C-alpha cells in the first residue's frame, strides 16, 4: 500500500501550521502585481494578454521557491525527526515525492490566487485564454523545477538559511545559462555546446511556453529536470540523514 498521500497530507498541512504560508502567498501576490503593473507596463502596452505577468515569474521564483523548499529536509534533520520518518515503513521514493508534491501543490495554490489578473485582462479586453492557461501550466512546471532543486539543496544542508542560499545559487545557474552574456562566454566553443548550455536555461524554455507554445520537448525538459533532482534528493537524503 502506498503511503505517499499520508506524507503529502502531513507536509502540506505543516505549511499552514505557521503564519509563514500566508506571508509567503501575500508576498508572492504583491510582488507579481508590482512586476506586472510597474515593471511590465501592463496598461501602457495596451494589449489584452498576461505576458508582463508571466515574464517576471522566473525571477520571482528564483527567490520565493527556495523559501518554500528550504524546510523540506533541513528541518527534519535539524530536529532529528528524520530518524522517525525514515524508520517508519515508507520508502524513500514515497518520502521524497510526498514532500515535493506538497510543496508543488502549495506553489500551485499561490499561483491560482493570482486569478484576479485573468479576470482583469478579460474585463479589459479579449485575451486568448488558451495562451493564458498554457502559461499557467508552464509557470507551474517552472516552479516544480525550482522546487526539485530546492529539495535537493535542503537535503544537503542542515541549516535552512544555507539550504536557501544553495538553492538560489543553483537555480540562478539554470536561469542565466540562456542569457547572451553567458552564451558569449562560450564563443570559443563548438555550436553544439553553446546550444546545449542554452537549452538548459529556464528562461528559454519558459519563454516559449508563456507565449502559449506548448512544445512536448519543453514539457519533457521540465519533467525530467524534476525527476532528476528528486532522484538526487533521495541519494543525498540517504547519504546525509545520519549526520
Amino acid at each position, binding site marked *: 500500500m502506498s*503511503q505517499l498521500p499520508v506524507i503529502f497530507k*502531513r507536509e502540506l*498541512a505543516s505549511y499552514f501550521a505557521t503564519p509563514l504560508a500566508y506571508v509567503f502567498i501575500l508576498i508572492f501576490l504583491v510582488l507579481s502585481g508590482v512586476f506586472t503593473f510597474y515593471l511590465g507596463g501592463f496598461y501602457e502596452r495596451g494589449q489584452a494578454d498576461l505576458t508582463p505577468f508571466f515574464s517576471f515569474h522566473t525571477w520571482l521564483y528564483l527567490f520565493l521557491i527556495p523559501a518554500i523548499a528550504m524546510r523540506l529536509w533541513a528541518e527534519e534533520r535539524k530536529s532529528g525527526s528524520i530518524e522517525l520518518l525514515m524508520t*517508519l*515503513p515508507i520508502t524513500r521514493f514515497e518520502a521524497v515525492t510526498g514532500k515535493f508534491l506538497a510543496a508543488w501543490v502549495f506553489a500551485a495554490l499561490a499561483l491560482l490566487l493570482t486569478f484576479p489578473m485573468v479576470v482583469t485582462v478579460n474585463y479589459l479586453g479579449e485575451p486568448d485564454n488558451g495562451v493564458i492557461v498554457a502559461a499557467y501550466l508552464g509557470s507551474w512546471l517552472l516552479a516544480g523545477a525550482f522546487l526539485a532543486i530546492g529539495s535537493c539543496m535542503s537535503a544537503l544542508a542542515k541549516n535552512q538559511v544555507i539550504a536557501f542560499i544553495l538553492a538560489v545559487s543553483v537555480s540562478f545557474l539554470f536561469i542565466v545559462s540562456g542569457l547572451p552574456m553567458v552564451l558569449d562566454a562560450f564563443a570559443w566553443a563548438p555550436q553544439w555546446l553553446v546550444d546545449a548550455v542554452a537549452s538548459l536555461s529556464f528562461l528559454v524554455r519558459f519563454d516559449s511556453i508563456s507565449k502559449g507554445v506548448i512544445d512536448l520537448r519543453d514539457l519533457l525538459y521540465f519533467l525530467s529536470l524534476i525527476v532528476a533532482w528528486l532522484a538526487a534528493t533521495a541519494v543525498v537524503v540517504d547519504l546525509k540523514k*545520519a549526520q
Partner: protein
Amino acid sequence: MIELKSLTKRFAQHTAVDALSFSVQPGEVLGFLGPNGAGKSTTMKMLTGFLAPTAGTASIFGHDIRTRTLQAQRLTGYLPEGAPCYGDMTVRGFLEFIAEVRGFRGAEKRARVERAVAQVELERVLGQDIETLSKGFKRRVGLAQAILHDPRVLILDEPTDGLDPNQKHQVRQLIQGLAQDKIVIISTHILEEVSAVCSRALVIAAGRLVADGTPLELERRSRYHQAVTLVADGPLDEQAFAALPGVAGIERNAAEHSLTVLAQPDAVILPQVNALVAARGWTIRELNVERGRLDEVFRTLTRGEAA
C-alpha cells in the same frame, strides 16, 4: 525473534559497531548497556533500518533488515534517542499521522490512537502543539507512536533519559505491562533500570559485546556479591574478619567503625560474620548483605575494553 549476525558499522574514522552477534527471543526485555559512544544507538539505528550496516546483517522475525527493510520496519516500534517529533503538530494530529503511515484508517485509526493515548496518559494534552509540551510529555508522545501499532518488536533508545523519578517509574511500568510475547530492547546507562525491568542485560563497549546475562548474573560478577557491610558502635577487628573462611578481603568505609567484608566467588559469608560478631559481643547498628554492584561490574567490563 531478532538475530544479529556480525553486524558491523564503520564510519570514516572508527568502527562504531564491531561484528555484533546475538539473538533475542520473544518475551525477553533486553537491556542494552554501555558507555556513551559504545555503539548502542548505532546498533539500534541499524535494526530499525535508519542506517545500513557496513558488513553483516540482522533479521527481525525472518526479515533481513537490508533486503526486506519495510517488512522489518512494519513489525517494529521505535523511539529514537531524544524522542524527536514534529513539533508543529498537535499530539492528536501527530499520532493520527503515525497511525495512517502504519496503514490504519477510519474507526480502527481512532481506536489505535485512543488506546496508545490511554496507555501513556496523554489525554490532557491531546490538542496541544508538541513543541509546547514538557520533556516528560514529549517522551510519552514518542512512546505512544512507538506502541501505536502494537508491534512485536519495540526498540527504545534511552526511554527514561531526562525524566523525573515519577516519570521514570511510569515508563518502566508501561514496559513491564506490555504483552509477554514481545521483544523489547532498551538502551540505557541507568543501571537500576536494568534490574528493574530487564530480563537480560547486554553490555557493549567500543562496539563489542563484553557481557551477556541476566541482571542477577551480572551482579554476581561483582566483587561485592554476597559482601557484608557492617556499621558498629565501637571499633571492629579487621584481622578477625579477614581470617574467616570464604572471606576475600576487607574494605574500610568512609563512615566510622564501618567495614565491608568481601566474599570469595560463590561463597556465602553471612553465617561466619554473624558468629564472629556474636562471639566478640560487638554492637552492630547496621548490617547489609549486598547483591553486587552493577555500576562496579559495568566499570570493570567497559573500562577494560577501552584501555
